[in-house]
């Protein structure tokens, strides 16, 4: 493209497009600073709902559970998903390879309600009490395939002679993976982890099937609180979550740009 030129058409479509995407969130953020208890009436600027939020133990507990679930489930999913991707890409042809790779991706298209129900029945069958552990297991299950997809696409373009060279220079197969393959595919593995973490943070349906009375995640808490009526406290909480996600995305894109500049490509 040569010089970008200003035109009314471009300006209008840009405005409408972004308004469509961000106006609802903007309103939410604005009302989180509302003095009034009524959500739809503006009564001046205040940060008192943030203060109230920090004293609300129920919300803080839910946030703690969500964070724990997110970190643990995405970490386990990254390890399992990377292993699955590695095996699928490297093991060459074997009987039922297509079936296996299909089965890794199937949960991507499975309705969440079905996954959630299946997990609930499974946990009941093995007699596992519902709580943080069951949510972690459930989130690992569905986010693992996302990690696998991301890592697979990186491994397909990976020059296998790099691994051969590592073996040739005295590495055991595991050492070759740890000291050559993993550092090179690290950006994809980190992307996979972030994706899994985001999905876990997001999830309402599967968590509502697998959470117990002792542990509730933030989305469930917000959802059940909203049914009682929207409070400015929820707005404040949502604003904080938007802030955290935005910071994460910006940090990641800056970091990956830096990696790209350092590495350019691995011919």
């Amino acid at each position: 493209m040569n010089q970008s030129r200003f035109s009314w058409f471009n300006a209008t479509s840009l405005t409408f497009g972004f308004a469509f995407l961000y106006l609802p969130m903007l309103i939410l953020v604005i009302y989180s600073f509302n003095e009034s208890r009524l959500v739809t009436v503006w009564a001046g600027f205040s940060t008192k709902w943030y203060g109230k939020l920090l004293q609300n133990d129920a919300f803080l507990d839910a946030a703690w559970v969500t964070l724990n679930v997110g970190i643990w489930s995405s970490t386990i999913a990254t390890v399992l998903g990377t292993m699955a991707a590695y095996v699928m890409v490297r093991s060459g042809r074997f009987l039922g390879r297509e079936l296996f790779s299909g089965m890794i991706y199937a949960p991507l298209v499975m309705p969440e309600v079905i996954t959630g129900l299946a997990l609930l029945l499974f946990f009941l069958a093995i007699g596992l009490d519902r709580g943080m552990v069951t949510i972690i297991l459930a989130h690992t299950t569905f986010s693992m395939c996302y990690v696998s997809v991301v890592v697979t696409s990186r491994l397909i373009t990976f020059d296998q002679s790099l691994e051969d060279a590592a073996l040739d220079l005295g590495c055991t197969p595991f050492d070759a993976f740890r000291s050559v393959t993993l550092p090179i595919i690290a950006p994809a593995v980190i992307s996979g982890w972030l994706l899994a973490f985001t999905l876990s943070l997001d999830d309402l349906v599967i968590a509502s099937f697998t959470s117990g009375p002792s542990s509730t995640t933030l989305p469930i808490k917000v959802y059940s609180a909203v049914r009682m009526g929207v409070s400015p406290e929820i707005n404040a909480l949502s604003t904080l979550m938007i802030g955290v996600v935005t910071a994460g995305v910006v940090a990641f894109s800056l970091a990956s740009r830096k990696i790209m500049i350092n590495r350019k490509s691995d011919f």
Partner: protein
Amino acid sequence: MIKQQAHTIFEPWLNPTEKPIIQFKNVTKRFGDYTAIENLSLDIYSKEFFALLGPSGCGKTTLMRLLAGFEAPSEGKIILDNIDIVNVPPNMREVNMMFQSYALFPHLNVYDNIAFGLRRSTMNKADIPDRVEEMLRLTQLVPLAKRKPHQISGGQRQRVALARSLAKAPKLLLLDEPLGALDKKLRHETQFELMDIQEKTGTTFVIVTHDQEEAMTVASRVAVMDEGKIVQVATPDRIYETPNSIYVADFIGDVNFIKGKSQILEDNKILVNWAEGQQPIIGTSEDRIDNGADITFAIRPEKVTISFEEPLDIANVFKGKILDIAYLGNISTYHLELPTGQNFKAQATNTHRIERRTYTWNDEVWLSWTDTAGVILSE
């Protein structure tokens, strides 16, 4: 030539007491229904620069991967220094490989790439920096030690790959099309560098290439391969001057083939009756040729002399008409037609800078060669 004088001739393959460092014994490698290597036996001697030459798909790369340990033979033994290495994994073999793509680790700098293998060896940690320095000096990479692979040129990457594979001082170094990615001029320079480094380190080199000129330049012996078999193993000059088959003669360099029937004379000379009403060709053969057998006479274009006057006292003299002239600077190749209509090529060196253009299109000329200029092949 100079090389041979300085070293008294290096020909361990002619010495029956010399033990080969590598022996392939009846090795077969199959991939499913496809046979990549078929019942192949081969001896390679210590300090040799051995070239595996052939078109793509002839099995040369498979042979190399068998040596490196990335593939296991379906049948047969591979012996390295008296030990059967078939069941030794690649990381336990005293064999290193330089990959066609170089396979430099992109996340490590030049120094760490070279040190990679040493850090995984039994070498004393304190000795590693000295060894890496030595390799950097050998390959003239000292100023680039801290650079990453993407920050250096193709020729420099090639040298890093060489330094890395030589660092562990392997018994055998495998080079898979090592110069394929370089441009022609750099490739020629690097060929001599490779020979120099091979001589300095005294390592046995096995190189895989499809470039016959490269094989002829660097190798002490060349194995010409076709469809999983070795067709001929010999020194470059023997491969060129006494090919054992049409395949080898045709694969290496330019050649004229004339088919005919043999007629044995007394003094080991053979007449090739090649066309009705044409004077037979007089030649010799290393093989035993039966009287009246179907044979092929092969002669290189540069062994043929062109002249306007009919030459005397030379075994073979034929008439030809010039169809085309390819001027290549140092030499000219003449495409000719024999009286039978067969095409024929002859070459002449352009020794004078400004030469009167003696031969031109459609000229009738005499072609002549001695009775030992060509070879007679029994096919």
